[in-house]
């Protein structure tokens, strides 16, 4: 029931995001010759897909949508006057928070794997090939990066009340993080998830062929997983102490 509740609260955002990501992938593949010739002067199809999907517009849309999927929760329910009903359910607040987080992270994973399915499947229709393994690896990187961005929005929604305050704070924090993570002295120590999602933040990306080679950066992915789990736990602890 709690899973269904979390789904109903986020389904409009998720379905809109899924349609957009899938639709844009279809457009990028079907109109690749116009795209490659104009703004994305790419020599190869693989380069074009990398520039427009994994480094370009689609990555930016995905990052914003991942943030916005994280907002919501009990603080918003308090403003709507429904927090009382939710809190009378025979479940702990930690469970409520965990299930909302789990549903959101599942949606992020599904969104991450949409390009994995669409791009390699449709590429033969335009006489091109995009390796499934590449798409899958980028899907995993997007799932990790998207999860990180999701918990930023998630934590902001736990900490800040007020309509859209959490979303504004989450967008601001993410942009500030991007600016700081690009500083040369910070780059060595802090993962920039945008670079991770495009592969350029890893030693496994070959810029001359625009492909990921070798194993994925397990250290970076593990750190992100740790951050995501800790953030959800922190959100649960904060919610347990809040007065609704």
């Amino acid at each position, binding site marked *: 029931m709690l899973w269904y509740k979390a789904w109903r609260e986020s389904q*409009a955002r998720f379905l809109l995001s899924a349609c957009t990501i899938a639709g844009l992938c279809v457009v990028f593949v079907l109109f690749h010759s116009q795209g490659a010739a104009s*703004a994305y002067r790419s020599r190869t199809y693989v380069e074009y897909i990398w520039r427009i999907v994994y480094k370009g517009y689609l990555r930016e849309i995905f990052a914003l949508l991942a943030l*916005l999927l994280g907002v919501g929760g009990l603080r918003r329910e308090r403003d709507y*006057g429904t927090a009382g009903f939710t809190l009378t359910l025979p479940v702990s607040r930690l469970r409520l928070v965990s299930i909302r987080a789990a549903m959101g992270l599942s949606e992020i994973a599904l969104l991450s794997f949409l390009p994995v399915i669409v791009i390699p499947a449709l590429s033969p229709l335009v006489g091109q090939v995009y390796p499934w393994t590449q798409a899958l690896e980028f899907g995993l990187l997007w799932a990790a990066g998207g999860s990180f961005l999701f918990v930023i929005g998630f934590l902001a929604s736990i900490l800040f009340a007020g*309509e*859209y305050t959490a*979303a504004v704070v989450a*967008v601001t924090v993410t942009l500030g993080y991007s600016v700081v993570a*690009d500083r040369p002295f910070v780059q060595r120590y802090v993962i920039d998830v945008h670079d991770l999602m495009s592969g350029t933040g890893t030693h496994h990306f070959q810029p001359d062929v625009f492909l990921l080679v070798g194993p994925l950066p397990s250290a970076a992915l593990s750190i992100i997983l740790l951050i995501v789990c800790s953030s959800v736990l922190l959100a649960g602890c904060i919610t347990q102490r809040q007065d609704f």
Partner: protein
Amino acid sequence: MLWIKAWEESRTRFAIIALVLTGFCVFATLFHRPVGPLGSGSVGLRIHDLIYSGTAKGTFAMLSVFLGLGGLTRERVRRTAMFTLALPVSRLQVLGTQVGVGLLELAVLSLLPGFSLPLLSWLAHDPYPFLKALHYSVLWFVCSMVVFAFAYLLAVAFEGEYTPPVACYIALMVQALIASWAPLRSYRLNLMWTMAEFPAIPWERLLTLLMITFVFFALAAWITRKQDL
């Protein structure tokens, strides 16, 4: 009273955006060191790199979406619409006030870099031309009005709390994609490009954007008048 109501509903978002823009301005003039050949450049180059062609511009456009999320549909979801509708004012007046407060806030936010950058750069002993900063403020104001108006229209049309901003961001990205399509690129329809135009202000394009803004507001007003709240 309606003005105070609209202000109270949006002041937190306005304050956060103002703080973010101020932070960008301070960082750009006093601390920012662009990566690459501009690394040891003047304050003007650093301002251009971070503010007028960089992250601050995109941030301002993205956060303008949240200033535009108002309307009576939001109040219906919170079950306060009946109180607002009981006031002795027309729905158009309620909408007009929200739009007026939002546009005033956008004007203030657009002018913030316009005044703070010349002042801060003067403190850094490398003054940035005030008229140049004002030039960009005009462009930022008109372009952010379009974003604000579209977000407002979506907030009036859709009931979900976060569906309007999601739809708005998607539309902004799709607009940028379409504008970069070769046959249309020469018309420079991308809002981000318009916000960075220099040296001349593209008055015809700004007028077109103002007309589009008016159409969005007119649609929002029409929908609100017909809605069963």
